[in-house]
């Protein structure tokens, strides 16, 4: 099915206008290349990004990717500078393979707005959300919000081993795998026969036979030791499993979600600092005029998107056109600046708007 793109010059014009609005509010214009080194992106997002991004090759530089988003280049640009707080806006093409949705565009424009180095995260989150909300207000979109920071705090606070917490933390962004691990750690899932046999074996290393490959005998033995140590641990309690489901299931308006999560935190005090941040953000949003009373909050929102968000997350959707991807998405990604900044971390929050979808929905006045 051919994808009818709105006239590109109109999309570009719409993008420019949104961008100019951000400039008028103090953001600096940012420009970057379309061809990016694949290595950094692959390291960050893992192999799955190949299913979404176009990979090509340069005779000298090796694998390159057509820009799948601006986040990595804008973070790299900012981290190379003096680190002083800054705001950027940009627009340009991004490219995404649409294997599962061939009817969606694989080349489109994004307009972005990013804030780096703010000292008050609640205020910065509220400001970014408020700006996107203001720009998109004429379209009457439904907003979705979440907070990956609450999920991270939940995993951090579990009364289980560090290895189990690390395994769960690694899979926060893969909900099915996360749930499977919770069940495993709670003893609610059957142990595969191969695992039982391995744990029962007197000397499993005796069966290794010919050693081939880079993964050494010591690494294999170390993992067996870790599996044995884990098997000797008490299972996670049913109460804790129930608390995890309760947190993940929270989906109501922000004030109700906060109240619900505070109830859960009575038994899961590790959540409290993250909930204080959630509350501060709600207050800051209300001061900016956001209708927080009716703003939806879903604890699991943002879990299936890219892994770099580690705090507030948001998206704007058209209820009239549920077939369309989100018109705008964004969130907080301090952890990404840490990974790209060689030890330095800078608070960062921002988002992107798709001007082509804005036009599909009738455009901005």
């Amino acid at each position, binding site marked *: 099915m051919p994808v009818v793109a709105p006239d590109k010059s109109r999309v570009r014009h719409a993008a420019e206008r949104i961008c100019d609005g951000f400039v008028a509010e103090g953001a600096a214009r940012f420009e970057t290349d379309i061809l990016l080194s694949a290595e950094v992106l692959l390291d960050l997002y893992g192999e799955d990004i190949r299913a979404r991004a176009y990979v090509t090759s340069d005779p000298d530089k090796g694998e390159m990717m057509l820009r799948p988003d601006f986040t990595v280049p804008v973070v790299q640009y900012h981290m190379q500078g003096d680190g002083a707080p800054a705001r950027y806006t940009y627009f340009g093409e991004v490219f995404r393979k649409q294997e599962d949705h061939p009817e969606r565009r694989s080349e489109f424009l994004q307009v972005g707005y990013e804030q780096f180095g703010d000292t008050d995260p609640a205020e910065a989150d509220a400001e970014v959300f408020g700006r996107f909300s203001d720009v998109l207000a004429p379209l009457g979109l439904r907003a979705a919000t979440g907070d990956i920071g609450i999920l991270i705090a939940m995993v951090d606070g579990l009364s289980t081993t560090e290895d189990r917490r690390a395994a769960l933390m690694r899979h926060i962004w893969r909900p099915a795998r996360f749930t499977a691990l919770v069940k495993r750690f709670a003893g609610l899932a059957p142990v595969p026969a*191969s695992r039982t046999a391995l744990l029962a074996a007197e000397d499993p290393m005796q069966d*290794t036979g010919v050693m081939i490959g880079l993964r050494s005998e010591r690494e294999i033995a170390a993992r067996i030791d870790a599996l044995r140590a884990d098997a000797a641990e008490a299972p996670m309690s049913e109460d804790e499993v129930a608390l995890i489901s309760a947190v993940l299931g929270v989906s109501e308006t922000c004030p109700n979600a906060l109240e619900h999560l505070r109830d859960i935190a009575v038994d899961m005090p590790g959540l409290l600092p993250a909930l204080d941040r959630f509350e501060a953000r709600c207050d800051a949003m209300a001061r900016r005029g956001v209708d927080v009373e009716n703003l939806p909050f879903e604890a699991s929102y943002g879990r299936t998107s890219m892994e770099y968000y580690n705090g507030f997350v948001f998206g704007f959707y058209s209820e009239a056109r549920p077939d369309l991807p989100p018109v705008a998405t964004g969130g907080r990604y301090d952890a990404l600046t840490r990974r790209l900044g060689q030890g330095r971390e800078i608070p960062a929050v921002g988002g992107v708007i798709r001007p082509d979808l804005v036009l599909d929905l009738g455009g901005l006045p």
Partner: protein
Amino acid sequence: MTIKLGVPSKGRLMEKTFDWFGARGVTLTRTGSEREYAGAVEGVEGVDLVLLSAGEIPRELAAGRIHLGVTGNDLIQEKLVQWDQKVEPLAALGFGHANLIVAVPQCWVDVDTLDDLDGAAAAFRARHGFRMRIATKYHRLVRDYLRRGGVADYQLVDSQGATEGTVKNLTAEAIADITSTGETLRANHLKILDEPPVLESQATLFRSRVAEQSDDERAALRGLIDQLKV
């Protein structure tokens, strides 16, 4: 005009395909010299034989340049996005059986499931500083399978042949490849994960959903399908 039937151009796959059609009263033969890829069809009207590499048949079906084609469903599913909208499987031919599987070194006594593979991959990346390499030529199918299986911290490295040797040669830690008996795997000190395969494949007759047909061609296709009873 005639209906174009694409068949693998050499080897056992070609012979078995000829046998399968022959048993149903449609005689396929190669014509001309041994090296010439030309063929003839007897027993049914209006059908041309096109001899092609099995790997090219999915693309030709999806482009509508052939109406029918015989190839493995592994190749169809790897090469065609939303394959079921482009081709329709008419009959499994009962040969060319092979599974696409993930295999790891036999010496990895701690790895038998995808859960193990993921655990080993996490430790491997922490220890070696790069993501565990899995050699394959079936990138899409394998990536999708590993994503559904919740495996992270791996990378696919392309291997178009002799994939079983990559582990020993230290260019990959594990492989994903087609196997029928598993003998080559065992000979290379590899074992198949104790999981459902990525894909179970066999030679299959496909119909292109996109190839255009005149009335004559439609009749010829109907005639062939009736004759084959598929």
